[in-house]
């Protein structure tokens, strides 16, 4: 180790202090600290004088000023009279929304493609390979533009919307009916949680029974049935306490219902497809890393193909998959900042873009934005390290 290089122990009395590695290390570190502090101090003093000459105020007072601009997509109530502090929160929530959806979708697509890459069907495996090699070698920004400009751009205007059932697709977004919950709906929610509890109990009962008798119960399908049936029955007994709010064409645009704006669709499509190509490769190499003897032993025990994959191969592969998967999740969240290029109102777009332009307080805003991404990164990697520790092989 290089660490040991400086630790030769010589009699302290005879060596000059520049020949003593320990003292030299201290001197070296003092120099480094002086250099770093000096550089930062130089930058700060420059920044202060520059800010003063340009007449830019400093501090976080701007966060309580009224913002004066609207945002296309907000998860909490917001309009132009709200403060820049609210703008920050709205942007953060939009970033988290696209990050969360992207992570879920990319994981699903990535696992499907990774398994397809290993299919013994030549056509499926080659198709998956083409998908992986095409999409991970094209810049993400280009893919975002492609979906936004070339695919979603030419959609017709609101008056010529494409009708899909009671949903409408046009260049302003996808308008779907929105559920409206009435007073009795909480019965259904309670019923749903009761169904979850019932399933949990069923799983435990099944385990016990299997331990005792060796017989298995079709646990998956019965759980699905309970989860659907129980809330549904309660829903009808409570008198159908839910109605739909249908989107309607009023004037030049649709009113009511839910809308998924094309910026979100394009960003999600691009992020999912791009990241899933990387995840597919990770999944493939993870599954390939599981020794073939494991599969053969499982088959020799008479375990079916699907169960071998689910019970033997995937749990072992997950150990190899999880660390690189974490960095892909982090990449996806960081890459979601490219939203600003097509105007999806994420943190970078509304805060580092619009707010910075309006207030000019570059230093505070950029530090806040970077701190958010840094915190998300640290939280996700902490969570993944914890999960990895649970999944890791218990060495004996």
């Amino acid at each position: 180790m290089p660490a040991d290089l400086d630790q030769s122990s010589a009699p302290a009395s005879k060596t000059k202090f520049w020949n003593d590695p320990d003292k030299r290390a201290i001197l070296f570190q003092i120099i480094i600290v002086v250099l770093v502090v000096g550089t930062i101090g130089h930058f700060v003093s420059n920044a202060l004088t520059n800010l003063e000459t340009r007449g830019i105020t400093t501090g976080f007072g701007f966060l309580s000023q009224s913002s004066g601009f609207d945002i296309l997509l907000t998860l909490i109530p917001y309009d132009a009279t709200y403060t820049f502090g609210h703008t920050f929160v709205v942007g953060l929530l939009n970033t988290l929304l696209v990050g969360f959806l992207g992570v879920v979708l990319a994981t699903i697509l990535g696992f499907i493609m990774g398994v397809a890459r290993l299919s013994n069907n030549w056509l499926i495996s080659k198709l998956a390979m083409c998908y992986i090699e095409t999409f991970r070698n094209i810049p993400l920004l280009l893919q975002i533009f492609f979906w936004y400009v070339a695919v979603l751009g030419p959609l017709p205007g609101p008056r010529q919307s494409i009708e899909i059932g009671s949903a409408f697709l046009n260049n302003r977004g996808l308008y779907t009916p929105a559920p409206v919950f009435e007073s009795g709906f909480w019965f259904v929610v309670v019923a749903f949680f009761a169904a979850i509890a019932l399933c949990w109990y069923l799983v435990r009962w099944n385990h016990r029974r299997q331990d005792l008798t060796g017989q298995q119960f079709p646990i998956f399908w019965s759980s699905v049935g309970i989860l659907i049936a129980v809330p549904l029955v309660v829903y009808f007994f409570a008198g159908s306490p839910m109605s739909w709010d249908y989107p309607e064409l009023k004037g030049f645009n649709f009113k009511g219902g839910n809308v998924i704006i094309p910026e979100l669709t394009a960003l999600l499509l691009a992020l999912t497809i791009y990241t899933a190509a990387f995840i597919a490769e990770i999944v493939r190499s993870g599954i390939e890393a599981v020794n073939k003897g494991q599969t053969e032993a499982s088959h020799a025990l008479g375990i079916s193909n699907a169960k071998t994959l689910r019970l033997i191969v995937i749990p072992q592969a997950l150990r190899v998959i999880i660390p690189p998967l974490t960095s892909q999740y982090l990449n996806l969240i960081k890459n979601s900042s490219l939203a600003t290029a097509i105007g999806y109102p994420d943190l970078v777009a509304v805060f580092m873009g619009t707010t910075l332009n309006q207030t000019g307080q570059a230093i505070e805003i950029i530090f806040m934005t970077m701190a958010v991404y840094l915190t998300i990164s640290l939280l996700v990697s902490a969570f993944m390290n914890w999960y990895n520790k649970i999944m890791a092989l218990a060495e004996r």
Partner: protein
Amino acid sequence: MIVNDNKIPDMPPPASTVGAVGWLRKNLFSSWANSILTVVVGYIVISNLIPLIDWVFLTSDWLGDSREDCTSGGACWVFITVRLEQFIYGFYPESEYWRINTIFVMLAGLIAALIFEGTPKKGWLGAFTLLIFPIIAFYLLYGGAFDLEVVETHKWGGLSLTLVLACVGIVASLPFGVLLALGRRSNMPIVRSLSTAFIEIWRGVPLISVLFMASVMLPLFVSGETSMDKLLRALIGITMFQSAYMAEVIRGGLQAIPKGQYEAAMALGLNYWKSMGLIILPQALKLMIPGIVNTFIALFKDTSLVLIIGLFDLLAIVQAALSDPKWLGYSVEGYVFVAFVFWIFCFSMSRYSQALERKLHTGHGAR
């Protein structure tokens, strides 16, 4: 006693396991489920592939000089061919194109020589590529010496700017990456924590915020009236960002060197820098090449982000051309062209790095 000396000729293998039929049975129709899957997916692929090929090649237009020449209904590659020079050279003056071409040829020659197995004195050639060639390339591109006309950086653009950003980013981040990686593995607590903090902070934030920082905050940090060049600011941002990633690649290479090498260097009485420079890094750098190529691929794709701070790289210049009123409505052609260029570069580099990994992977481990 009857002995039959004549060997009975071998029977041919069953027709269903060899040749085209056998291959089909094994790979496409091994079971009922597989057969159905093959037929359904095959139908979907073919029904999409035929119109695609038709659009790209058969009914497309390649020659001409305005959109009126696009008559056959397929892709209008005229849009690309008319503006190809701009896409490659940006706004560089036409009379000076030879300078960029010279750099392209030199770069291609150097890379070919470095990849080729039998090149003698590879170390010196690599040092030349990393140290001397960037200086030559700078004076050729920017001018200002040897009677070359100065070409301001705001005229640079297109594919050549993309290559400048990626190459400068990777070459400039190498020394910083080495220092940061050594710092992170050092036993001096302050050096170690400073290096770790630097690496983790840059790896934790998106490149966009780094570019914003470089373009908005950097001018505040330098004193007084000196206005920094936009390209230079972007390059500083990219280099800082990239050196954090480079440091992690180099750290991985350093960790792969067995402990005995460090101990042997110490036993020979070499000091820290000599043991690093003469024993450890030469061995580690070889192992790092695949990782460095992979970060280069990532950086090459990420250079397209400079469009957000107003530089005209390949994607940005095509994006700008799309909004030209004379060529409205050809966005698909434009994006397909850019995607193709990026794909060629990234795909060939990733294949090279995979081949290198296989070559360096000598025997130990699973496969």
